[in-house]
């Protein structure tokens, strides 16, 4: 046992409260680039989606600029998300506990986590957000390119473009809903946001929500 005062053992830092490293600087930068582009895409896309939201195009310097810039931000999003995907896909693989966890929606939604199985780095809800976003972003980039007349207009027929624009709009709604769930979860579950700002969470947060992950970190060092 070490003496008094905070000391570090791997990614678990003793102190009051205990602090646990969750995301590296690289992962956080990667996340925020992706997050920013997703928000900008949602705003610019929605301005074209419905007349009542057209005013949002003034954020981007008017309708023409919105139309020009949106697909480019889409490329940034795609590259950014690809980075996140490569970092985290393994941790998001489905396992038996995820099924069990999901089967108690009442306990999850009322915050009674003591009745749920202990969870590793990600719970089933987070994994679903991850996989749904992955799928939707693939759909969005493929359909988005088919709608990007400026560069790809001559490669697609009008019927293909009609399908693309419909699929893109539906997938965008889906992505925005998944995003709402993601943001809401980060706000509702207090103590989560610091994971992506300072890269750390408190030991209590890890104990409450991701106990298996915490146990692994403690035994690893």
């Amino acid at each position, binding site marked *: 046992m070490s003496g008094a005062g905070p000391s570090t053992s791997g990614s678990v830092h003793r102190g009051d409260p205990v602090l646990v490293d969750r995301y590296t600087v690289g992962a956080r930068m990667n996340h925020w680039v992706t997050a920013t582009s997703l928000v900008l895409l949602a705003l610019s896309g929605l301005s074209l989606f419905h007349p009542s939201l057209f005013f949002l195009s003034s954020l981007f310097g008017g309708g023409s600029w919105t139309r020009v810039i949106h697909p480019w931000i889409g490329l940034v999003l795609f590259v950014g998300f690809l980075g996140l995907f490569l970092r985290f896909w393994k941790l998001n693989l489905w396992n038996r506990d995820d099924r069990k966890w999901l089967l108690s929606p009442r306990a999850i939604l009322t915050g009674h986590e003591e009745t749920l199985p202990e969870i590793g780095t990600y719970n089933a809800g987070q994994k679903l957000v991850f996989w749904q976003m992955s799928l939707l972003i693939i759909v969005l980039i493929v359909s988005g390119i088919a709608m990007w007349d400026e560069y790809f207009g001559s490669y697609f027929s009008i019927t293909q473009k009609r399908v693309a624009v419909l699929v893109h709009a539906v997938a965008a709604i889906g992505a925005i809903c998944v995003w709402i769930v993601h943001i809401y979860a980060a706000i509702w579950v207090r103590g989560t946001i610091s994971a992506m700002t300072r890269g750390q969470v408190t030991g209590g947060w890890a*104990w409450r929500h991701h106990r298996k992950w915490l146990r692994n970190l403690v035994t690893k060092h």
Partner: protein
Amino acid sequence: MYPPLPNPSVSPVAAKLSDKNLMRRSASTIPQGEPVQQVAKLIDTSKCIGCKACQTACLEWNNLKEEVGFNTGSLTNPHDLTTASWTLMRFTEWVNPETDNLEWLIRKDGCMHCADPGCLKACPAPGAIVQYTNGIVDFVKENCIGCGYCVKGCPFNIPRISKAEGKAYKCTLCSDRVAVGQGPACAKACPTQAIVFGPKEDMKKHAEARIKDLKSRGYKNAGLYDPPGVGGTHVMYVLHHADKPEIYAGLPNNPTISPLVEVWKGAVKYAGLAVMGAAAAIGVVHHLVNGPNRVSREEEEAAKRLAEGETK
């Protein structure tokens, strides 16, 4: 013969068509504008000699310059509508299976000025496409954002987007000339009166007489092309073979706004806004009911014990 268009008066005339006469405006809800007489252009394919005077008159009046093209063995030149060629004579050599005769079909392609315009339905930019109460569908350049949605909305594949300018172009039915009591430049230039212009009802009557004449000459399927699927059009054709419009360089048989476009611009818009709104609202309600999901003091203590190796 339908009376030819009068020569323009040289004294200035006040425009009779303005924003007061709009019946539809893209991405906007507007009150019904003051009515003006419904107009139409009637193109009689049986009288057209393919001289392209109309095509030239269009370039001339609208001050457009087409690029010098190349020959691919067809008189259709340029090979497609472009941002400068808002109208195009399309030539088809068709062998009539009944008579074994080669028929030379010539159709003046361009915007049909649909009563239910798919371009306008698809357009996301307020006021970039307008429809006047006389039936003319016009693009308003200042409001256009160049997104190309009108191309996807149009059942006739008409609008063209200029890459240089990022704006959409198509036939205006010479709305500027019609506003001062003139007819379209193409109709004015046509030497055989294959193109005539006037009130839509008159055009239909004129077409009837033409169709009767064609029928008496053995074109038993002669007829008027005023497709009901788009509510009728303000550019109509007299066809010798109205039973198969597609032989005229792919003129659609019974065109309608694509169901894909209807769903995209209909159900998806309302359902989309509702679903996103509901997702956000559920979040707010959930938070109000359950309160925040907070870590307790005991949990911090438990983590501390774990970190210090006191528990396993």
